[in-house]
């Protein structure tokens, strides 16, 4: 099973990943719609990609009272059934990495779905190689 790995010391803070990720999953480019978030300390040149860690025993899945979350058997990512999600944000609180996100407009939780096995973020990180899908 492939995993999407981040190598923080190679992250340049360019945010290309955030801009393409949001575009692929929402109707616009933004930071808030991205499933990967870059956390930056610009003064010290430190940029850290944060995204779902695809836990073996995901706390978010356990926390969901509506059974809206499950593991995608093909990609091992967390899938959110939007028809079941009631926007309670229990999964967001449960995630120890802070990488389950909330869309306030539609009142739904979302996280990385690995673009169904062909992650777009990796495609725009080919020189820094801070993201790899292995």
């Amino acid at each position: 099973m492939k995993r999407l790995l981040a190598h923080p010391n190679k992250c340049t803070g360019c945010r290309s990943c955030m801009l393409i990720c949001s575009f692929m999953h929402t109707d616009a480019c933004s930071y808030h719609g991205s499933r990967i978030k870059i956390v930056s300390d610009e003064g010290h040149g430190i940029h850290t990609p944060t995204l779902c860690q695809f836990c073996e025993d995901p706390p978010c899945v356990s926390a969901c009272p509506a059974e809206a979350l499950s593991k995608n058997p093909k990609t091992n990512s967390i899938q959110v059934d939007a028809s079941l999600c009631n926007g309670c944000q229990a999964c967001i609180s449960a995630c120890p990495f802070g990488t389950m996100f909330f869309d306030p407009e539609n009142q739904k939780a979302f996280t990385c779905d690995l673009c169904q096995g062909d992650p777009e973020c990796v495609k725009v990180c080919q020189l820094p190689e801070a993201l790899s899908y292995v």
Partner: protein
Amino acid sequence: MRFAIAGKILHVDLSKRKIWTESVPEEWIHKFIGSRGVNAKILWDSMGSGIDPLGPENTLIFGTGTLSGTFAPTSGRTTVTCKSPTTHLYLKTNVGGHWGTELKFAGYDYLVVHGAAITPVYLWIDDGKVEIRDARHLWGKDVRETTSLLHEEIGDPATQVAVIGQGGENLVYFAAIMVSVYNAAARGGAGAVMGSKRLKAVAVRGHGSVKVADGKEFYRSCHVAIKNSYEDATAKFAHLYGTAGSVPMVNEARAFPAYNFRRGYIEGAEKIGGPYLAESKYLKRRLGCNACIFCCHRYCEIKEGKYAGCYTGGPEYETISALGAGCGSIDLEVVIKANELCNIYGLDTISAGNLIQWAMEGYEKKIFTEQQLEGLRLEWGNGEVIVEMVRRIAHRQGLGNILADGVKRAAEKIGCGSEKWAIQAKGLEQSRVETRAAFGYALAFAVNPRGPDHLHSETIAEFGTRPGGRRLIKKITGDEKYANPRLIEKRADIVRWHEDCFAATDSLGLCAFINTSRFGVDPQQMADMFSAAIGKRVTEEELMEAGRRILTLEKCFNVREGATRADDVLPWRLMNEPLESLARGQDVMKAVEGKTNPEDFTPINSPAMLNRMLDEYYELHNWDKQTSWPYRETLEKLDLKEVIPELESKGKIPRKK
């Protein structure tokens, strides 16, 4: 919400404490594209001729690219435009980092600052909400500290900040506006303009988004550009070694300005070059501007020795030549430390280095008094004095106060023949390209509206070192043989194509390094991305024509200010002294004076040679050769009729004979 752009101009008048917005006219996107182009239009409209650049009548404009806020590769660049205090002419300066995209996500494509505050203020743009806030507690603090304090005060470390340091506060004529801490809108003194308005910073937080018209086509066209960018031979080296990677090659080409442009070569230059830096203990990180896929920026730290505790973005190629080789030094730690001080005080490294070199040459020639020197030993290669001079310039201390006015004024003040080694034209210090060894660059530098530098048309292709470059020269001129920097032929054609492309690139928000420095992405691909973003078909010709229109408008601003052909020159040294390292033997001066064959290469930008290129260039543009001013028919053809009445009233529309 409109496609690609937020559609709003934010106006702030600091004298009247008024804030208002204006819609971006639809027509401007086709005529002027965005960023640099629209900035130029706003600047033209906002003032008459002859205003004081450091007075309240100057307009300071921040413009985001049409493609900023999207994943179009390298689309995160921003242009800052105003009238320059050092040249009293048009100034646009371009910057990376992440501030521009944040402004767009906050709902504004442009920020236009009018007037001047009485006491220091900062702007806080929090999505739609805009406030003018007291900045007296921030005045006197450097760029890095100010950014930190604002993050704390606002309570959000993701806030993007555009800020001036002591350089801008003290009205240093080459003060920079810094964004995302280490990214500089460096050239021409925009930082001093911001300082004259007592505007310490513009802090922005934007939670919005950017939509494109045709998502599928946008994705396709961007990926063509991404793929072609990755496939360019130099993409990987750009990421690995940065612009600093150019140092060894330019030095080997004997075109690496050293010792204040006395030489084009310095022994050991590789020790301040990109590959050496990459293997050294100093390079800690490679960084990238918003939406970039090359990520060519550096971040360095010095942990031991004299400069222990130093940490900074950079150094770039220009900085390395300006604060290293140009000063006769190949000390990498000195370059990094001096770069840090320029960054945190907010100074242009190119000009800062230029001034220090001018002073070193003056010291060698004993033109300064003991009183002026205050014990400074301005010897070539003295690293400590390089670092110290940056401090003194930023704080206008002692000799630093004279240098802070730029090299043209410093030479006028000190005299003693020092005008001859003031490497400036139009009042702007030349950037680190040896134009006596590259004639396309020479022409480009002479005609650049802001002064002699490479960020108007980067004609790397003329060196003939890369297959993509040779193909481009063939496309422009019809023959690869013109990929030769020592030819005068076809330089005008080459510069014209490059300046059109550069203007379009800047205005879309794309980085100049995506094309002309690399050869994977061409104007057709840019037009495709542009078309898909805005939902209207723009052809390559229309895009290049918009580029032409933009730089013609910039030219018109200068014409209105009184510029003529006499201003399209190069620094005295480059026009009168041959480049030593390319000159062989005693006969060079003789060859220059009594030239038998005008086609023979001599490493000098002589008036005869420059005039020949200027004649061709003005002819191609359909500008009057005597004055350099555009003809009426040229302005009409370019749909720039709006500038004619004012220029005509000043007698600046030339009659065609």
